[in-house]
C-alpha cells in the first residue's frame, strides 16, 4: 500500500469536506465571520504542510482554512472559532480570517495583505539564532507580491540567509482583478531567481507532486540555510469572500473553472489511490470516519457557549 499517498488523501479530504460542511450551514447565519474559502488550493496546502515537521512554523492569510487544517491536525478548535465560541483558543475573537494555533506551529494569519510576510522572516531569524532547525513557511497570494513589504522581506531574507519558505499561491486574481492589470513584468519566478533564493515553479494540482517539491525546497533551506520561493498555481473555485460560485458576475468564465475541475486535487488523488489498488470500500470507510469527526466537532461548536462579556478586555496587554 502507498502509505504516503493515502495520508495525503486523508488530509485533502478533511480540508475539502470541512469546507463543504461550512457551505451547508453558512446560510443558517450562525458563523458570523467572513469566509475566504480554500477550495481549489488543497494540493498546495496539504502537499507543503505534510512535508513540514510538527514544530516547523506556518503563517497564513485570511484564506487559511486549508493550511490551518493541514498543518495542525485540529478540527475541534477550528469550528469552535468560526462559530465564535468560548471553547476555542481565541474564544471567537479572531474568526475565520484570524486562525491561530501556536502549539501546532500555526503562528497566525493576517487579513491585511502581505502583512505576515516580514513577520515570518523575523520568526525565521529567531529560529536561526536559536539553532533549533525549524523552518518557517509563509503562504500568500499573487496580490501580496504587489506590496512593497513583500520585496523588502524577500531581500532581507536573502541577504541574511534565513530559513524561510515563501509560498505564493497564485490564483491569478486579487479579489476580481487579474494579474494582467496589476503586474508590469512577465514572471515573478525569474525576478526572484535573481535574488539569492532558490525558486520552484509548479502548476500541478497533484498533491504528491507538490509534496515532492516541498521536500526539495525544505532540503534546500536546511542545506544552505537560505530562503526558497515557491511559485504555485491554482484556481479559486468560489467567490473571493463568501461560499458561493460567482461565474455569472462576468470577470471570469465557468469554462475555465471546468478545465481546472477536471484535475481537481481531491478527486484526482482518490482516483490515483484506486489505481494503486486501494479498495473503494476502504476509502469510503476512511472518508466516513473523517466526516464523522468533522460533523461531531461542528455540532459541539454549535452547542458550545459564547464567551462572557468580561472576555473582551482580556489578552489586550
Amino acid at each position, binding site marked *: 500500500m502507498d502509505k504516503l499517498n493515502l495520508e495525503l488523501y486523508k488530509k485533502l479530504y478533511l480540508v475539502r469536506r470541512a469546507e463543504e460542511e461550512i457551505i451547508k450551514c453558512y446560510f443558517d447565519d450562525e458563523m*458570523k*465571520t*467572513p469566509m475566504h474559502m480554500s477550495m481549489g488550493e488543497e494540493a498546495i496546502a496539504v502537499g507543503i504542510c505534510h512535508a513540514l515537521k510538527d514544530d516547523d512554523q506556518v503563517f497564513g492569510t485570511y484564506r487559511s482554512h486549508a493550511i490551518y487544517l493541514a498543518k495542525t491536525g485540529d478540527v475541534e478548535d477550528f469550528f469552535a472559532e468560526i462559530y*465564535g*465560541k468560548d471553547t476555542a483558543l481565541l*474564544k*471567537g*475573537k*479572531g*474568526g*475565520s*480570517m*484570524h486562525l491561530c494555533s501556536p502549539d501546532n506551529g500555526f503562528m497566525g494569519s*493576517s*487579513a*491585511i*495583505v*502581505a502583512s505576515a510576510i516580514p513577520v515570518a522572516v523575523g520568526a525565521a531569524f529567531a529560529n536561526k539564532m536559536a539553532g533549533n532547525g525549524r523552518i518557517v513557511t509563509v503562504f500568500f497570494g499573487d*496580490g*501580496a507580491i*504587489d*506590496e*512593497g*513589504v513583500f520585496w523588502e522581506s524577500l531581500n532581507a531574507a536573502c541577504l541574511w540567509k534565513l530559513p524561510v519558505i515563501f509560498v505564493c499561491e497564485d490564483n491569478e486574481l*486579487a*479579489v*476580481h*482583478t487579474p494579474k494582467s*492589470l*496589476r*503586474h508590469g513584468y512577465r514572471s515573478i519566478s525569474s525576478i526572484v531567481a535573481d535574488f539569492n533564493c532558490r525558486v520552484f515553479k509548479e502548476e500541478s494540482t497533484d498533491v504528491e507532486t507538490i509534496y515532492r517539491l516541498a521536500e526539495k525546497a525544505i532540503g534546500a533551506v536546511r542545506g544552505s540555510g537560505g530562503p526558497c520561493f515557491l511559485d504555485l498555481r491554482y484556481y479559486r473555485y468560489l467567490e473571493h469572500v463568501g461560499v458561493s460560485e460567482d461565474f455569472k*458576475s*462576468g*470577470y471570469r468564465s465557468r469554462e475555465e473553472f471546468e478545465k481546472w475541475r477536471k484535475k481537481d486535487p481531491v478527486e484526482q488523488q482518490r482516483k490515483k489511490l484506486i489505481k494503486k489498488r486501494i479498495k473503494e470500500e476502504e476509502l469510503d470507510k476512511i472518508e466516513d470516519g473523517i466526516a464523522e469527526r468533522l460533523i461531531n466537532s461542528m455540532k459541539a461548536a454549535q452547542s458550545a457557549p*459564547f*464567551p462572557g*462579556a468580561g*472576555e*473582551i*478586555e482580556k489578552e*489586550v496587554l
Partner: protein
Amino acid sequence: MGGSRKISYCKAINEALIQEMERDPRVFTYGIGVPDHKRIFGSTDGLVERFGPERCFDTPLSEDAMTGFGLGAAINGLRPIHVHMRVDFMLLAMNQLANMVSSYRYASAGELSVPMVIRAIIGRGWGQSFQHSKTMHSCFAHIPGLRVVMPTTPAEAKGMLIASIREDSPVIFIEHRWLYYAEDEVPEEPFTLPLEKAAVLRPGKDITIVATSWMNIEALEAADILNKRHGVSAEIVNARAIAPLDDGVIVDSARKTGHCIVADNDWLHCGFSAEIAARVSEKCFGSLKSPVSRIGFAPAPCPCTRPLENCFYPSAVNIIKTAEKTLKLKEADLSEEVFYSYEHKFKGPF
C-alpha cells in the same frame, strides 16, 4: 434650478463623483477594485463607462506607492481621488500621508498644492474583527496638513465630497459602511458644504450629544427614547468635520444646554472625543452643569464573535444610560425598544 429627491448615501457619493468628473477633466478616481463589478459597494458605479480607464482605474495592491503617486499627480495639476475599501488598508500608506502628503505645501512655500481626496470606508459588524473595523480619524486628525471629514447624511456625503474635490489641500473623507443604505433628500445640482464646521442634526435644549459618523444614528435613536421616556430634549451636534475643526456650533450648544456627551465612533483614549471634551471644558467652563462624558469603542481590538462585538461597539443604549446619569434621571426600562444592528440597519430619512 433643479430640485431634490430622496437618494441613498452611496448614490449621493456616486453622484458627486460623476458631477465633479464631468465638470473638471483633471479629476480622476483610482484604487484597488474601483472599476470591478462590485464598484466599491456601488459608489463608483458608471465611472469607468463614462470617463474611461484613464480616469477610473484599478491599481496593484500598493497602498503606500499609490498614495505617493496621487501626491505626485496632484502637485502636477491633476485632482486625484484615491479609494480604500477599508481604512485599515490605508494604514500601509501612513508614511506617505504623515511624511509627504501632509507637508508638501509647507515644504514648497505654498507653491505646490495637494488637491487630493482619499476616500476611506470604515466598517462594522458581522465578524469583521480587528483588521477591518478601525476608524482612525483621530490619528489622521492629529497630523497638521491633512483635512479629515466624516459625513453622516446623504446630503453631507454629496456636498462635502464635492467641496473636498474642489479643495486645494488633501482631504481624508471617511464613510461608514452602514450609512450607505440611509436615504434622504439630496439636491440634484452640484453643491458644497463647509469642511470645517459641525452641524446641528436635531435641535434640543436639555443636553448636547456630539456625535461622529454612525454614532449620529445611535444618538437620534437615543434622543427619541430620552424624549419619550423622560421628556428630555436632546440636541445632537453632528461633528462631521474632524480636522481642522471650527468648534463654534459645539460650544454654543454645550453652553446652551450645560450638559455634553461625546459619542465617538472610535476608541476614547487620546481620541477625537478627548479633543471635544477638552474644548468644551475650556470654552464652556462657567456654563457646564456636569462634567463632559465620553462614549466610544471598548479599549480592545475589535473581536469577531457577535456577543463580544456587541460589547465592543457603543450604541443608543450607552447614550441613554449616560444621559440618565448626567441628568440624574431614573433608569428607563429599555427591554421593549428595538435598536439598530447589522441586520436591522438604519434606512433613513433623517
